[in-house]
Structure formats: structure tokens, C-alpha cells
């Protein structure tokens, strides 16, 4: 039995995220009951000759419970006033068929840590306007406490309400720059 590995280069040239058809967000286990998720409305991302980078305005964070907004943007979580942006910069990108991986650094709340984003890549596709597009679907898991986001609350059984592990997700529709 043999396996065949198809390795294809990442696209060259510059591609910018079409933010209407892209999303950037997080998921975290909450109170052993389910997943709490949120996303940012204002962000940008770019793939330039295989180097992925992006940033988001954390004040544009939305969750399903608007009552949590003030707390999430406060010093106990993102401290949006002091640290208005989160970001990712890849130092190396790889593609293996429809799989993609980007090694780089992620910055949240002023703390920069190494992170590897993995997922899928699809393209090129020509959209309805004749532009070349690539679709990247990536995620990574971080320990939020390493970024100074340490809030928690004890549950009646003594366990913690909010997990330390957070999954960051990005669905990017990247359009070739004119």
C-alpha cells in the first residue's frame, strides 16, 4: 500500500479578504454546558505571496448576548480601550493538496505568542465578477490565560465556568488584488 501526497504551492500575488463573505471569531466551552461563541465585524486579512496576515478591531466583537459586551471589552477580558486590535502574522505558510497550515504569531491584549493555523484551502475559483478567489478555512487553539485573559467564576460543584482553551476560527474569501 502506498500513499500519494500532493503538494502544491500557495498562490502567489496579493489577495485581500472580502470581509462580507469572510468571518473571524472564537469558540470557548462555557460552564460545561456548551459553546460560547463570538465574532468580530471589523477586520482585514491578506495573503501576499504565501504570507498570511490579518487584524481585527476587538471593539467590533459581537456575541449572542449583548449584555456581555461591556464585560468582554473590559480589562477582565480584552481591554479594548488599551488594546484595540488583535492580529496574526504568519512567518511560514504551507499547502498540501487542500490542506493549509500557517505558522506565525498571534497578538491578543498586547501579548504575542506563536500559533499555528491549520485548515483547508480551495481555489482558484473565478467569482461572478471574474475575480480570482481562494477560500481559506483556518483555526487554532490558544490558552487564553497566556494572553492575560484569566477571568473565571466557580460553579456550585467547584469547577470553572469558562474553559482556558479557546478555538479561534477564520473563514476567509480572498480576492486577488487588481
Amino acid at each position, binding site marked *: 500500500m502506498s500513499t500519494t501526497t500532493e503538494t502544491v504551492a500557495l498562490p502567489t500575488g496579493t489577495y485581500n479578504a472580502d470581509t462580507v463573505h469572510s468571518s473571524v471569531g472564537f469558540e470557548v466551552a462555557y460552564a460545561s454546558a456548551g459553546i460560547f461563541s463570538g465574532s468580530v465585524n471589523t477586520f482585514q486579512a491578506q495573503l501576499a505571496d504565501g504570507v498570511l496576515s490579518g487584524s481585527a478591531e476587538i471593539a467590533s466583537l459581537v456575541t449572542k448576548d449583548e449584555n456581555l459586551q*461591556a464585560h468582554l471589552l473590559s480589562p477582565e477580558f480584552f481591554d479594548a480601550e488599551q488594546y484595540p486590535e488583535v492580529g496574526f502574522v504568519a512567518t511560514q505558510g504551507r499547502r498540501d493538496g487542500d490542506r493549509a497550515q500557517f505558522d506565525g504569531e498571534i497578538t491578543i491584549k498586547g501579548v504575542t505568542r506563536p500559533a499555528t493555523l491549520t485548515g483547508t484551502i480551495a481555489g482558484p475559483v473565478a467569482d461572478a465578477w471574474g475575480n480570482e478567489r481562494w477560500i481559506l478555512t483556518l483555526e487554532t487553539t490558544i490558552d487564553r490565560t497566556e494572553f492575560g485573559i484569566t477571568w473565571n467564576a466557580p460553579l456550585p460543584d467547584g469547577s470553572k465556568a469558562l474553559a482556558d482553551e479557546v478555538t479561534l476560527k477564520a473563514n476567509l474569501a480572498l480576492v486577488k488584488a487588481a
Partner: protein
Amino acid sequence: MRILGISGSLRRDSHNTALLRAVAELLPPGDELVLWDGLRDVPPYDQDLDDAPAPQAVQALRAAVTAADLVLFSTPEYNSSIPGTLKNALDWASRPHASHVFRNKPVAVIGASAGTFGAVWAQAELRKVLAAMGARVAEVEVAVGHAAEKFDDEGRLVDEDVRAQLADALAVLAAATPQGRAAASLLPAVA
């Protein structure tokens, strides 16, 4: 620096109100502490009233918070927690959630109690509430236990150790306001 002082006690001879007065006496020229005396007038919070004009006492509280660089609370401890009147006022002040006056507002908590521990549990509860509201909670704690022995009959602080703790707290608070943070940001960054 303009400090709004909020005492969690309505009692006429409140040790917590007296503690805030003691803080006022320690302020350098140019700084001031204004005591908020409207706690008694805040009606019970009712979410049905969110869309109506807020009661006058609530409007006054919100205006006072907005005008302050920092809000300093001094709370007693009732049944291991903060007084209901104080929590009620904060519930009012924290509406609407998207734009309320305590978001990013530098705040700090101190407290006094007749017992040994100086309202430390109430202080912790109040910090939790303020943080959940989105305030910027400064890391200071002054816990004045056996308060009856620390103030004279006129409500003047007579304990020099407490006075020194208050002075230390004020030094931290000066750096906690936007002006203080701006001054700190001029210092060389530490990696």
C-alpha cells in the same frame, strides 16, 4: 483628578462615608473628591423602565459618574455582601449596556466595618460587580476593621496606619486614571 466618592451606607454617622471624607483631606491641591449623596433617592431598578427617561436620582448619578475621572466606593458589609441599595444603584447606572457611564471608568473600592475584617468580602463582591459592568477596577484595597475605634465622635479618622494606607491607595489611583496612564505611557517601554 476629580473623584466621585460613593458610600454604600446611608447611616448618618457611617464609617464608610467618614472614610471617604478622610480620603478627601489627603488629596493634593487641584484634586477634589465629591461625595454622592443621592443613594437614598434611587428607586428600585425595573427593566420595564429602561426605555423611559431615567428617574432624576439615576440621571444625577450618571452625570456625576461621567464628570468624574475616578469613582471611589467605600462599602460596608451586609450579610457577607454589598448593601442592596448600592447594588440597585449600580444596576441602574449600568443601563443601557452598550453605552453606560461605567464602561472603562476607573473605579476603586475600599471599605470599613465594625467587625474585624473591614468588609473584605463586600469589597470583593463590589469589585466583581464593577468588573462585570465593564469598569476599570484599580488594584487597591483598604480594609478598615474595628471602625468604631478608628474614628472619633465627629467622624474624623484618628488612625495613622489607615491614613497611610489611604495615601498609598491614592498614589495607585492617580496612575489609574486616563491622565495617569498617559503619563505612564511616556515612560520607556519595558519588554
